[in-house]
């Protein structure tokens, strides 16, 4: 039973990486899109792309927290006690990001838009970085079990955490760029499609370049994770590399966007799942096992019911939202597609 809930937890983490991650990545591209004039069109495409879906994307995080604190309260207490600083930074980032994204769309003056846009974009980088360091801290065994705090600083300022943070930002950027290529093609904007395709390729290459020294970092700094990644989780690591490469190849061909996006998602899914498999059976390597951390069975049953509820109620809604969004039935405000622009107002 505790295994089932641990799987649910990891599914939620993966979903957050896929959907929330792409959102953060979009913020990253917004950040480096350049001045008001040059960056105008990319920012429009980004707004258009994440406008209707960002809030739903971030509920995955709440789900992760809820499953963690209800299903594995001891682990949650240890994580929050130890990683007070990066989690606080992430919380601040989330406030800034969400509110300034909502505000930016409602103001028209360039100066206001720039300020809100900057807050949105900077926090889009800060938040995934912090979460990456948290993942690194957990995976490298720096969060002790038993409700005692680990080191408040070195727990997240260490080689594995920095690797986790940088990878989180880069992978999010890669994922977002792939999605944005598809979105740009959907609104028939070939120049923007090309713009984001180049960025997807750069991000993928950077991710690869970060991952290679990462192997050696993990070998010396997070031995349990490293052993897992190079043994039972190895197929997933290889699958991730193959899927990532395949997505770039398909994007370049330009005829199979849907598959390119699917492969990019598969690449991220296999990395995140690989992390989970590598640190199994621990929730906090190597001091707390999933089975030992789990709440009583009554609680786990309730979580299972909530999960089934999520599959029955939330999933169809989530799919509906995405289908409507992909069919441009949720146009939002402010963005005109070329097709709409031709229409008499």
């Amino acid at each position, binding site marked *: 039973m505790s295994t089932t809930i641990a799987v649910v937890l990891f599914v939620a983490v993966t979903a957050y990486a896929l959907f929330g991650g792409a959102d953060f990545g979009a913020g990253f591209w917004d950040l480096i899109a350049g001045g008001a004039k040059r960056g105008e069109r990319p920012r429009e495409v980004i707004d258009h792309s994440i406008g209707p879906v960002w809030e739903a994307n971030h509920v995955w995080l709440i789900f992760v927290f809820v499953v963690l*604190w209800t299903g594995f309260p001891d682990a949650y207490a240890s994580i929050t006690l130890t990683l007070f600083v990066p989690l606080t930074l992430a919380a601040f980032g989330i406030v800034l990001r969400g509110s300034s994204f909502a505000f930016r769309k409602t103001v028209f003056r360039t100066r206001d838009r720039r300020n809100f846009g900057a807050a949105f974009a900077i926090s889009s980088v800060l938040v995934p970085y912090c979460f990456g360091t948290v993942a690194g801290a957990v995976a490298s065994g720096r969060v002790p079990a038993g409700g005692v705090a680990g080191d408040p600083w*070195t727990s997240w300022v260490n080689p594995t955490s920095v690797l986790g943070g940088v990878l989180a930002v880069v992978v999010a950027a890669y994922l977002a760029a792939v999605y944005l290529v598809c979105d740009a093609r959907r609104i028939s904007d070939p120049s923007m499609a090309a713009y984001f395709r180049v960025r997807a390729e750069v991000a993928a290459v950077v991710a690869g370049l970060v991952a290679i020294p990462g192997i050696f970092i993990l070998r010396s700094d997070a031995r349990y994770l490293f052993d897992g990644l190079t043994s039972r989780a190895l197929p997933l690591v290889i699958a991730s590399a193959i899927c990532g490469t395949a997505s770039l190849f398909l994007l370049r061909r330009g005829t199979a966007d849907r598959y390119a996006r699917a492969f990019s998602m598969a690449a991220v899914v296999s990395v995140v799942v690989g992390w989970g498999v590598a640190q199994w059976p621990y929730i906090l390597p190597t001091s707390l096992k999933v089975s030992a951390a789990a709440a*009583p069975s009554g609680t786990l049953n309730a*979580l299972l019911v909530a999960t089934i509820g999520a599959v029955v*109620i939330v999933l169809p809604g989530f799919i509906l939202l995405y289908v409507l969004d992909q069919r441009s039935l949720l146009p939002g405000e402010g963005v005109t597609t070329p097709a709409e622009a031709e229409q008499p107002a």
Partner: protein
Amino acid sequence: MSGTVLSGVVQPIFAVNPVPWARAQMAFTLAFHIILVPLGVSWAAMALIANYRGVKHNDTEAMKLAQRWSKYMAVTFAVGAVTGTVLTFEFGLLWPRFMGQWGEAFGVPFAFEGLFFFTEAIFIAIYIYGWRRLKPWTHFWTGVPVVLTGILGSVSVVAANAWMNSPSGFTLDSNGNVTKVDPMKVIFNDAMPLMAAHMVMAAYIVGGFLVASVYAAGMLRGRRDRYHRVGFIIAFSVAAVATPIQMGVGDSLARWTYNNQPIKFAAIELVPQTASDVPETLFGHLNSDGTVSGGIPIPGLASWLSDPTDGTATVIQGLDTVPADQRPTTSQVNTVHLSWDIMVGLGTMLFLLSAWYWLCWIFKRRMPKSRAFLTLAAGAGVASVVTMEAGWVVSEVGRQPWIVYNLMKVEDAATGNTGVWITFLLVVALYIGLGITTVLILRKMSKRARDGDVSEDQVPYGPNGPPPPTPEREPVTVS
């Protein structure tokens, strides 16, 4: 904690007792979030009422209201969503020992809250962004889940809070660890039905009065067109329906507290020693020596209200029946009592205002139009927020020093991180900025709408997707 150089330097500066700061931060962020909750819960319902009128009766003003409200809602919902997310961080960051000890029970309602909030976030996005391209009735129905999940979500959160007041549904071993959990008993704990009803009603009252107050202010400035009238009537009616219900719910909840949380009740009614024939003291305060001074006592009323069947002979348990470390401090008692007076006082005034409104409808078949009424209605928004905040203070401060009633104290629940005072100051600065910006943005949006912003007013209702080009206004077909 650690021997690293960095920590060694930083520790002494940070070494401040985290408990009061954690308390302050939680209180502040919750006090902020609770203002946005009513808008998230009830505004969608009001927008749907307007939307229904708009589609069914081809009422252009109502339709315009629904569209604008949904735009404002997008802003308040976003701010509510992020401030709510912060709370999920804070449970762990500020109260890790509470979560570690009780998470398996306390967390259960949140699993369902997550479910409802997720659904709400999905459908509110569809509703807000779907005006232009979805068919009118399809679009209307995408708003309905928002209303339902808003109610269910707040019920779930309050269930968790109610559990802190009335913990049940678990078994403890000899070390005090939770060994068995009965999720149904956790969620449907004793305090939950009344507390949840009280909060949902509060959400409709505050949301209604807040929105109505904007239109009342507009009417006072001479904008007495139909648009303002319809906006006012929809919002004010919602609040004015909920207010009388709330009087009944609140009264039942007070009696529940009398029976189940006697010390909280003693703080509310300012009762230092157990007695019968207890007066209802308006204002006044408790002194540290256990005497009450000041205030206007109404003889026997507190006893009578606690149990009308026994009348003024009803005995009310005093604060001194439990040791000092198991009841609120003197200043906390005074805070609870004052907040109670504010809640009941303002609540009664809002009830009278609602009565005025309904009597006018009954006798004159129209809403009251006098300046006096509109002035009061314009103030009702802020007044209802103050009322709700006061009620929340009664509930939370009245539970002190317990975080889980009679089982765990707040001071034993807090984090050991001594830097909380810094995060508190940062949170206050960030939230003040956030609050001011939200208000400014909403005002700006409303001003823009009033000045006749072309891009907004030309948003036609219904499908006008690129292929095929459709006329400006689709004839609304009613089935």
